[in-house]
């Protein structure tokens, strides 16, 4: 169930086509290569984080729960950027599978370092203008897709940039929502590294389902009640799976207090 929801969210976040800005930073070598490729489709592939898998158009982020594994395979993240005059007009991300033969004028950068890919994609999501050779996202949706693809990259520490984007008034709402979502995911990984395992609750599937229903119901309370209550659950629950679930729903509130909490967790405080 979680895999399905997460998968759906991942698809929504990764499916591309508002204009996004953020802090200007120096071009990474990879970003420079992408920008230098000019108009057309720029492809690149990079290693995916553990737990990320793909099947068809579905990208999942679940590792199973000890008795089940998702029916999709771990593999490379494959990103195609449609570039036109310094703007990325569309972005498609896939996990696993194969590229079809490139068309004339398309550029395949091949296998690139995952950290550099993540940095380039987040830079794209936050870039304000194509000045200075920067590529910019041509829409809020492209920026959101870039954030989602960056979040899949192996070994990349993306949460500081995610936090920055999540708090930025300069990026579009879809990009901001994507940043909050993936920030919550990262915080969830921190509190529940096993992902999905039941802790002190005894492990009965029925109890877990009831408890999950209670966390969801709590998230549906008026925000003034829901956010402090969910934060209290994150702080005090002894069950990592419960804490992760509460973090997920906190992410859905897009509340600044929730973002602060994610950052505190990720900083290990």
């Amino acid at each position, binding site marked *: 169930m979680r895999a399905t929801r997460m998968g759906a969210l991942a698809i929504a976040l990764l499916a591309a086509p508002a204009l996004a800005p953020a802090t200007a930073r120096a071009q990474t070598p990879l970003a420079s290569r992408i920008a230098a490729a000019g108009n057309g489709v720029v492809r690149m592939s990079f290693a995916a984080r553990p737990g990320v898998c793909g099947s068809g158009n579905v990208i999942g982020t679940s590792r199973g729960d000890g008795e089940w594994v998702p029916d999709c395979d771990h593999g490379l993240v494959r990103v195609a950027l449609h570039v036109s005059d310094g703007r990325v007009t569309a972005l498609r991300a896939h996990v696993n599978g194969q590229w079809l033969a490139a068309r004339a004028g398309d550029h395949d950068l091949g296998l690139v370092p995952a950290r550099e890919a993540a940095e380039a994609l987040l830079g794209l999501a936050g870039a304000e203008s194509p000045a200075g050779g920067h590529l910019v996202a041509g829409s809020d949706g492209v920026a959101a897709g870039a954030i989602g693809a960056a979040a899949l990259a192996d070994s990349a520490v993306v949460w500081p940039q995610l936090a920055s984007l999540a708090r930025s008034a300069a990026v579009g709402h879809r990009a901001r929502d994507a940043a909050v979502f993936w920030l919550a995911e990262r915080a969830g990984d921190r509190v529940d590294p096993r992902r999905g395992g039941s802790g002190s*609750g005894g492990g009965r599937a*029925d109890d877990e389902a009831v408890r999950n229903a209670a966390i969801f119901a*709590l998230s549906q309370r008026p925000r003034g009640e829901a956010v402090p*209550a969910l934060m209290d659950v994150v702080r005090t629950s002894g069950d990592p799976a*419960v804490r992760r679930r*509460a973090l997920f729903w906190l992410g859905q509130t897009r509340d600044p207090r929730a973002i602060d909490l994610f950052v505190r967790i990720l900083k290990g405080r």
Partner: protein
Amino acid sequence: MAEHAALSVLAAALIGGAAAGLGPPARVAAQTPDLAGRVAAVRDGVARMSFATDPDVCGDGAGAIGRRDGNAGGTGFHYLRERGTMHGEWDDCVHGPARVALTVRGGRVAAVALHVAGTWPEAGPGVTDLGRVSAPAAAAYLLRVAASVPGERDAGDAMAAAVFADSAVVWQPLEALAENRGLSDTRRGHAAFWLSQTDAPEAARALGRVIDRAIASPGSAGLARTAIFALSQVHEPGVPGMMRHYAEDRAAPERVRKSAIFWLGQSAAAAPAELDSVYRHLADPTLRAQVIFALSQRHEPAALDALIRIARHDPDPGLRRKAIFWLGQSRDPRAADTLRAMILGGRP
């Protein structure tokens, strides 16, 4: 107020709507030969008539018709048919005569238009004004028309006009219409609804008979549900008990029982404890889920208490989840405390 709005919409839905049918009881027919003959004599055209309405009936002279509210000291009204520009205060809704225009083709009534208050526009060619007629006689005649006029909406308007007629006793012919298997379920449902609006002390028992026969008749669950809604609109002390009976009636189709539970929950006369008691008596999870929903629509603390008990202690996890969902939607601040305690308290 929300209830009234919902009822008005339902009333409008019940009135809106086509079928041919059989005539009402002979006793009614015997009362109205004169009026029926005068309308038939028009042959082709429009026959107008007006008659006195019940003192609590009002209208805007066009499509909207209301009835004085028993609540709030009788200073308000609720819509019984369509919605107009009147704004809830009795004074906005004008008490007046019912004005009925019957379109006649070949001596038979082909359409019915009902207004309350207002005035007739100038009569054109083909319009015959029968003037002011006896309200009971008009009611009896219109209930015959309700059985025979082709359109369902026209039939509903004819029934409504009969119910609004001053001093007319119409519950028996309406019950007969509701029981008439020669009519469509839609028209029979109209009859059940308007039976509920008669204020006759016999209305609840008459509706009970309609429901019982519908439950016993294969394929009549829809009519039974409509009649249960109609019963819920009758303000008699025995009605909640009747609704509970249908909620727990194992011979009734599930959707009929669900309707009974829903309307029991909507009844201000039924305490949340009554719903909770129904829950405890039912075994079927689908019906229990309907009780949970009915409880969720009540805002008394006792309803929340029942939801909390189900959420925490019901042996069926699926029903617990439903109760939990509705706790999340509750306005009562105790709901958040309960949810948090369930999440943090080990076994939820």
